């Protein structure tokens, strides 16, 4: 009997793992090791040899399916729309609404904006979104005379009004948006998790053993809705924005895995902010210091906000700072204090099965195997690019990803540039580090030559001094 062709399925990491695992189980597809709390990225179906499963960030799944690296995938339709907004011809078919993770993609502003027409008078509309292509399509359709889209990693709701005029954001519904202090301008898309397929695979390959059970299962979905974009705004007299004189120091603190290290550092410096501790993450914690305003955002997005002067001081990782500086060497951001906490390594990572222990040996091996281009997957495309150039990788391809890089090697990339704290996840996924790029710790960043005076200067100096003392108290790493 002829062996069936391998079906490659891409499943999402993150909070949606649980409901997707349930939906797969209900369809009779048991993916061993997939579900809530799992850290495995390379999985299989015990009773179906023909199916291989990899786990990716939802955002990366449409890219993998469009490339043909995977035949089928499960992800929120918003990520398909995000890719199509920039690459409309990609061969992706949205097959079935799985009715999970229902949400809306909204364009929203801060309180005080009554509608889209209010924006037409701005000289430059500042937008922030983790859906930058949708934000771009929105701005182009609205015919904003000039606009700037900041591609961010998350926490978009924290940006208006100081750091953005419009955000494009995914939320359950308008009520949630209003609870977060935002005014909906337009719902761009009604979205939920879908089964998607590569068009070519669907046309030529027998996918029925996975497709059948998932399509046959009862759908709770409402079907696809198209992307809605605004009609052109009427031309209005533009007013140049004059930023109000700032009287406070604006400081950014990170959420995510760095938060606990930063809370410790702040605590050692005698600083406590209500709403930012080991258990709580409010976007705007309350500062006990007069003249200090705090905002909690993704650490990856901080260097740019510091460069443009929106934020005076930020606590982020050196990895995020170097990623920014490698991409934009003329950026005026600098590290002003190493906080000596949250250390982890930025390393070049390959499959454990590769019989090499250095990058040089790996390159020799790949070349002997006839590989003409080395694929490097990383959340840090700037660092990866710098690494590839400095190590003379000759022809290489950077695959920018949103995370969950462990699933890429060896099928979809030869090399990862990856941050590792303990090395446990690497080992669990059959990977090993062969080259250390640098050790990253949490650090304090600011804008070079920022003109500060009066109370702003005092608060800035006081914060830096307190955090410096806190860092000096830590055993050097």
């Amino acid at each position: 009997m002829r062996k069936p062709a391998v079906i490659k399925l891409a499943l999402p990491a993150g909070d949606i793992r649980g409901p997707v695992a349930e939906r797969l189980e209900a369809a009779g597809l048991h993916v061993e090791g997939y579900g809530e709390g799992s850290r495995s990225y390379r999985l299989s179906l015990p009773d179906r040899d023909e199916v291989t499963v990899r786990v990716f960030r939802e955002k990366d799944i449409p890219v993998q399916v469009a490339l043909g690296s995977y035949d089928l995938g499960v992800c929120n339709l918003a990520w398909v729309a995000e890719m199509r907004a920039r690459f409309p011809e990609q061969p992706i078919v949205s097959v079935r609404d799985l009715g999970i993770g229902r949400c809306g993609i909204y364009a929203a502003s801060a309180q005080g904006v009554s509608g889209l027409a209010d924006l037409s008078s701005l000289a430059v509309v500042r937008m922030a979104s983790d859906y930058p292509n949708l934000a771009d399509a929105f701005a182009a359709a609205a015919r904003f005379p000039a606009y700037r889209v900041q591609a961010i990693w998350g926490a978009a709701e924290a940006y208006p009004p100081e750091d953005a005029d419009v955000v494009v954001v995914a939320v359950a519904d308008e009520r949630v948006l209003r609870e977060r202090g935002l005014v909906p301008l337009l719902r761009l898309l009604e979205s939920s998790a879908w089964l998607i397929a590569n068009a070519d695979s669907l046309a030529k390959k027998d996918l029925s053993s996975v497709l059948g059970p998932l399509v046959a299962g009862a759908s709770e979905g409402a079907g696809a809705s198209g992307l809605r974009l605004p009609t052109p705004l009427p031309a209005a007299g533009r007013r140049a924005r004059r930023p109000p004189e700032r009287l406070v120091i604006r400081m950014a603190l990170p959420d995510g895995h760095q938060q606990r290290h930063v809370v410790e550092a702040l605590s050692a410096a005698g600083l406590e902010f209500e709403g930012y501790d080991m258990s709580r993450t409010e976007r705007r914690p309350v500062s006990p210091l007069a003249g200090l305003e705090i905002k909690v955002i993704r650490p990856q997005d901080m260097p740019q906000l510091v460069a443009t002067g929106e934020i005076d001081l930020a606590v982020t990782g050196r990895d995020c700072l170097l990623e920014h500086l490698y991409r934009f060497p003329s950026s005026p951001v600098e590290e002003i204090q190493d906080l000596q906490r949250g250390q982890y390594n930025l390393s070049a990572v390959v499959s454990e099965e590769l019989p090499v222990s250095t990058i040089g040996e790996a390159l020799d091996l790949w070349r002997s195997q006839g590989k003409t281009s080395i694929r490097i997957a990383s959340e840090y495309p700037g660092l990866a690019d710098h690494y590839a150039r400095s190590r003379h990788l000759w022809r290489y391809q950077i695959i920018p990803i949103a995370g969950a890089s462990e699933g890429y090697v060896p099928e979809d990339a030869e090399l990862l540039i990856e941050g590792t704290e303990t090395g446990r996840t690497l080992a669990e996924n059959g990977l090993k580090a062969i080259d250390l790029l640098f050790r990253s710790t949490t650090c304090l960043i600011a804008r070079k030559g920022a003109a500060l005076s009066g109370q702003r200067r005092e608060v800035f100096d006081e914060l830096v001094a307190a955090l410096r003392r806190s860092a000096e108290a830590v055993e050097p790493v």
Partner: protein
Amino acid sequence: MNRSMRCRGMRDMLPPEMRRFRRIEEAFREVCQGWGYDEVRTPTIEQLHLFTSAGTLSPQTLGRVYSFLDWDGWSGERVVLRPDSTIPTARLYVEAMQEARWAKLFYTQNVFRFAQGDESREGSQCGVELIGDTEPEGDVELILMGCETLRRLGLEPELRLSDPGILRAVLARAGFEVAEQLALSGRILDGDIAALDEIQERLPDTGVSLRALLASEGEGVPYLNNLRSALLPTIPEMEKPLDELTAVVTILTDSGHRPRISPALVRDFEYYTGPVFHFLVGERTVGGGGRYDALISLVGDLSRPASGFALEVDLLMELLPGEGSEGVFEVAIRPASEGTADLVATFRLASALREGDRSVTVAGSGDGRAAWQVVAAADGFALSGDGGAGRRLASVDEVVRAIAEASRD
């Protein structure tokens, strides 16, 4: 090698193509200089906001620009590989030349727009921008310049003229919003005649068939007069575009041209404010332009009328006949041996001939195509070929003199 090292959609130009390219560029340059225009060049990279704020690129075109964050991109400002040369030239005028009441500028440069598959993503344009109050004589001048360039290249151009104000007036009178107007004009351009019926339904008082009047082309002033008499009573907003177009068409017709009129001609419906024109060779539109009086004010705070046109060099290159090699030399010189003395003799002769502006070839091939062939040695020069006649001469001066005398004969 099964994978090209060339980027997708980008082209190499080989010597025959470069010869055609230069021929087009030279013809265009001579015409522009003859009409009193000055050449400029703008940067390959421009700020993206220049194009969004000018509102001249549709969202579809904006979605196809090569935009990226460059090394200064930390501010979030994106840059583009220029998708068009008119807007950069308008910027150049606003920033560096606005004191001049008129600016008559031309350029030959490349533009970049993403295309699917292997379609070309880089093209070259020969463009002209006429800034300042010149209506209608400026429009006519531009049209004549385009026609003259094409004729110099041995091509016979046909002219299509229009004024987007005609269709805009109809759509506005029918009560369509701007977005609907754009969609309907796009459909008409795509040949969807049903769009005209939808417009007609909103204009019950018109009394004449829009389909009959606007779906086909007409000829010159008589057709414009028919539009005027049939539509002006119910759509008075048409008067200005019809007047402007009639002025241009009258001058062209009286100068021996036979322009055809298409009520819908250009997709950049929002961009053009007055007469527009296309140059066709056979069935192919090889260039076009028109009046865009709002452009300068959108780029800078300055009101100045403007118009211009561009010829698509890549299309013209396809239409020009193939040309033979230009690598024809007067004298091919070959050293008698690899010895230093013979090589010195070779290059002494080559330098002397070049001082006299003779074309020579020493290294590589080409000697078979030369009228004179010389074998150079330290003790003298052996001549052969059409002009050589098996002579042997002792010095460089003698060879130079012999070639000069033979050329005079």
